[in-house]
């Protein structure tokens, strides 16, 4: 109340001062915007620069160009808060200009600057990714400045909304997945029981035949038949086992564990196979890693599966490098899809790398490796649930798995856990 009374006493002229003062405070509060003006007409361009540099609404750092190619150069070199975009340029025209810009720099807000009598075009631009539009000759410095600030805030809100939407979509997908797993689980255990009984009959029957035929020195065809039946029944039993494993994945018994210890235990399970294929295991563990909240048996299953993949990719000899370290989410964020980013909301991640120098993954197979029942070892009895199960387990832990080829040859599997 005090300042009002004070200025009122000083008369009308003084009365305006607090208003001006408030304005400059607003200016101070508003961050300066770096604007890229893309405008074909040199006169307009000069005028726009003038309007912004004199603006009483905000402060601007300005760069300007008259064509799209140069605009791209500017945007690649430098970071801009907002683009003021004329749609009709020497090297691009109409909404196509907006489309190209938006595709190439989707995160920079755009205000479209259309010619007079083109306000329907302006509206269309807003539906195709622009944050606002202006009609040439119909605005002054204040309106222009306000529109640029508005575009920045609107873009921020749009991105937040998009992220919230992605997050909801991911959650919905997870819920659907959980429901699906429940159904699969019920179905699988029901089927498993029904199928295991006849399988038991077949396997006992075959064993009996085998004993009888050994005694009677049966011919090769009979032996082959018995052998094939036995193999087939065992294979069917393996599939049932995998199916039951798959069905029980959503039930986790988590407690804090040291990932290095889990790795050691997993390695001890495959030591024999490593020795058999003359594979050297190099360990590079980070000390003092924070514990991760995991179901140890499940994660061991993932690690053993990855180790076995590596071993099978190096049948005669090779090296497996097992590495653990702590990293910041921001450092590894770039390479993940939005859906994955949403899943891993933690500042710090405990990371496990399992690398080999084996065959690597064929580029054509890369997109399919996580698909259920995809295997490159069908002939050798592979069922193709290994990586699919591994991914489900990691997802259920709120973690991530990534598998890629190394530049120098071989493959690397990466596991990310919330620290």
């Amino acid at each position: 109340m005090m300042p009002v009374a004070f200025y009122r006493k000083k008369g009308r002229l003084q009365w305006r001062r607090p208003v001006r003062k408030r304005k400059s405070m607003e200016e101070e509060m508003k961050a300066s915007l770096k604007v890229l003006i893309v405008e074909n007409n040199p006169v307009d361009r000069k005028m726009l620069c003038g309007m912004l540099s004199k603006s009483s609404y905000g402060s601007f750092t300005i760069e300007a160009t008259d064509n799209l190619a140069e605009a791209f150069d500017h945007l690649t070199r430098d970071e801009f808060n907002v683009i003021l975009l004329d749609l009709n340029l020497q090297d691009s025209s109409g909404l196509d200009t907006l489309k190209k810009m938006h595709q190439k720099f989707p995160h920079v807000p755009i205000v479209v600057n259309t010619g007079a009598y083109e306000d329907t075009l302006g509206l269309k631009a807003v539906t195709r990714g622009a944050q606002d539009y202006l009609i040439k000759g119909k605005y002054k410095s204040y309106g222009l400045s306000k529109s640029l600030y508005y575009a920045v805030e609107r873009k921020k809100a749009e991105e937040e909304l998009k992220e919230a939407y992605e997050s909801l979509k991911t959650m919905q997908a997870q819920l659907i997945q959980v429901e699906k797993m429940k159904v699969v689980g019920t179905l699988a255990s029901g089927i498993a029981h029904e199928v295991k009984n006849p399988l038991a009959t077949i396997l006992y029957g075959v064993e009996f035949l085998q004993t009888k035929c050994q005694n009677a020195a049966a011919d090769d065809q009979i032996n082959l038949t018995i052998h094939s039946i036995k193999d087939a029944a065992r294979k069917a039993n393996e599939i049932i086992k995998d199916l039951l494993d798959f069905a029980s994945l959503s039930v986790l018994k988590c407690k804090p564990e040291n990932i290095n210890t889990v790795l050691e235990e997993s390695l001890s399970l495959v030591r024999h196979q490593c020795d058999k294929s003359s594979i050297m295991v190099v360990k590079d563990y980070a000390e003092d890693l924070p514990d991760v909240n995991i179901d140890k048996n499940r994660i061991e299953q993932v690690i053993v599966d990855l180790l076995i993949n590596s071993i099978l990719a190096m049948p005669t000899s090779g090296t497996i490098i097992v590495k653990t370290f702590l990293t910041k989410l921001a450092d590894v964020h770039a390479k993940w899809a939005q859906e994955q980013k949403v899943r891993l909301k933690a500042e710090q991640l405990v990371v496990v790398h399992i690398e080999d120098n084996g065959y690597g993954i064929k580029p054509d197979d890369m997109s399919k490796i996580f698909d259920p029942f995809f295997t490159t070892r069908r002939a050798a009895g592979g069922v193709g649930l290994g990586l699919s199960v591994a991914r489900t387990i990691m997802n259920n832990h709120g973690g991530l798995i990534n598998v890629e080829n190394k530049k120098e040859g071989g493959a690397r599997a990466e596991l990310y856990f919330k620290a």
Partner: protein
Amino acid sequence: MTAKKKILIIDDEPGFTSMVKLNLETTGRYEVMIENDSQQAVATAAAYQPDLILLDIIMPVEGPDVLCQLRKSEALQDVPVVFLTATVRREEVAHENGHIGGHPFLAKPGTVDELITCIDEELG
């Protein structure tokens, strides 16, 4: 020559019980009686007086109920019973060292060797 051990298998899968009988009898060490009707299980056991009983779980009268009734009979209360069932998994059985809830278990499907080893262990 020692007398053959008498094994009673109670399971409602006729194919499976036949295969168990064939495999066990072919060793020459066991005599096997089959009971596919779980309602008749206790009566058959009482009449046959087996040395060991192989018992399925999922049947019209469930395995654990059959076991309770067997234990009520003075003549049968000390007969070793091995659960032979598809309701458990081999890994689970292995994890519990072959005994679940104090009872010996065998998972279906398994091998004849496993079956014989388990029977001989229980028979002492």
